[in-house]
């Protein structure tokens, strides 16, 4: 009995030692991969940061309105944010590669899924950035046009344009990421429909006087206005 226990114990110790002997090189490989990955990710970050500064990415981001959001959230500049993001994604990639070398069941599948997800994440970020850029450009264009046409509440008009574009872009981004696709589709449908219905009701009821004034201005008072506004800028 005693011998059996000692034998089992020594067998277990032997197994542990063998397992550890098997695991240790893999663990060292993982550590090496993580260290090498850190160096590569850091180099990528430095190079990317230089390129982004060269192409004045911060200015582009400012135009897109992304910089303002970052400032409000007390975050670093868009160039720094993107560089850091790429650094972490790259390093995480190497760490996960190292983890997969450990041969832990179940983890390998998750690592593979992460690498499949990466391109979609980048596409989503790309869509988000240019979507914000478009939203900023078109909302500013609407604001300027409304101010110069003397349209009442130009900022509301500009905000409406920005909101519609951002909602549209977000729905595309979520679809690209594959996150709650159905929920997003339904939410977008409801949100967009509600917005349009709201606008229709607002124009129908609230805009009645406006339409009347507009028609009066166009038809009845046109001659008076013509007499008053004949100043040529050139």
């Amino acid at each position, binding site marked *: 009995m005693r011998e059996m226990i000692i034998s089992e114990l020594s067998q277990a110790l032997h197994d542990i030692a063998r397992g550890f002997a098997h695991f240790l090189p893999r663990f060292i490989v993982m550590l090496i991969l993580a260290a090498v990955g850190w160096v590569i990710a850091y180099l990528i970050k430095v190079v990317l940061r230089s390129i982004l500064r060269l192409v004045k990415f911060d200015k582009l981001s400012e*135009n897109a309105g992304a910089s303002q959001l970052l400032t409000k959230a007390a975050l670093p500049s868009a160039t720094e944010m993107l560089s850091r993001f790429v650094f972490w994604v790259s390093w995480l990639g190497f760490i996960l590669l190292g983890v997969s070398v450990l041969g832990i069941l179940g983890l390998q599948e998750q690592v593979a899924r992460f690498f499949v997800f990466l391109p979609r994440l980048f596409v989503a970020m790309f869509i988000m950035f240019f979507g914000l850029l478009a939203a900023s450009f078109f909302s500013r264009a609407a604001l*300027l046009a409304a101010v*110069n046409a003397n349209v009442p509440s130009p900022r509301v008009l500009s905000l409406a344009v920005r909101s519609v574009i951002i909602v549209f872009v977000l729905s595309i981004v979520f679809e690209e990421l594959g996150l709650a696709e159905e929920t997003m589709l339904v939410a977008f449908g409801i949100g967009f429909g509600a917005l349009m219905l709201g606008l229709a009701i607002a124009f129908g009821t609230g805009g009645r006087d406006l339409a009347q004034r507009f028609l009066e201005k166009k038809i009845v008072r046109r001659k008076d206005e013509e007499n008053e506004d004949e100043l*040529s*800028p050139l």
Partner: protein
Amino acid sequence: MAEESFLTDDFLRQLMNVGEVDILVGLPTHNNAKTVGSVVQTIQSGILHGFPRDRAVIINADGGSRDGTPELVTGISIDDMRPSFNLNSLRTLHSISTKYASSPSSSVAMRTILAAAELLRAKACVMMSPESANITPEWLSKLLRPIYNDGFDLVTPTYRRHKFEGQLITNLVYPMTRALYGLRIREAYSPEFGFSSRLGSQFLAQNVWNDGTEGAGVELRFTLAAITGKCRICQSFLGEKDSVERRGADLVPAMRQTVGALFSAMEPDFPAWSGIAGSQPAPTTGADQEVLLEPLRVNRKRLRSMFSTGVVELESVFQSILSPSTLAELQRIALLREDDFHYPAELWVKTVYEFAASYQKSVISRDHIIQALAPLFRGRAYTFLMENRNASARDVENNIEGLCLEFERLKPYLLQMWEKGK
């Protein structure tokens, strides 16, 4: 001759039939059937009166008119004019029309006319507006003689205007052009001007046609090219300026054509203007400028309210363009009561210079920068109206001169803003 490639075969054939000419009259059109007939008759009369012995051609560059404008131009014969003036031209006067595109573009029209002038080896050329209701036959001589006889390269017009007309010219384009380029040209942007074939060919070869500005304000770019090219420039008084087709509502397009063109020319012309201080008068035939004082109804309240609304609503846009001190000052005056409202010359000049520097740095879309200046210009226009409400012609001129000097005085401020953050 490289420019002939964009001309149609039919147009080239017509030009070859004409041969060489002494005088070329360029007439860009687009749906001008109402006025173009009388303009062409006046041009023909001007040629009969002033240049009966010279070979002349009218080149009509049409931007896809649907009202028969080109047919009207080519259909009017000079023979109809001769009996009424008892004059005979010793040469044939040709009228050629070409459709350069299906939509109008002053830049393409001008390029077509310049290419035709180069091909026909015209000695003196003149551009005329198809909308001028006040055009007289003498305008042709006044714009062509200095080139034909005195060797000038560019003749820009001066006009008799109401004191409140053309405020974008008097409050921005003229003073700023003068301060930048050092030459006092009253109408640097005008649809009527005379030019030599040398200047025409020189401008044709420049890279203004594909520089991303879509040829906006090509007339102004032409004048600036003449100044930077050290060409001989003079002014000629034509008479009353017509403003039938121009309204206050056209402010933004007018700003794109003038301010946009001026701002976009500043970058390539920087070596030419950065070292200039002060300004010199340009030789002028006739009056420098005449001012009409008759009463005119103007919607001043609208100008003032659009300025205030603009300053409030466009705050986020102005934060990208203006310095904090200028923006704060604008916000202060936007709150003033109508009677106290005053947009001082110094603040206006600083505003314009900061816009020019922001345009150069493209802090936001360049077209948005131009659009954002429109409400501020309305504020300045209001102040100009109030300052000159009871002013005599001399007072108005003095006020414009004062503004010009302010633009010249603050030029170092522009250079400072220009270099900042480069």
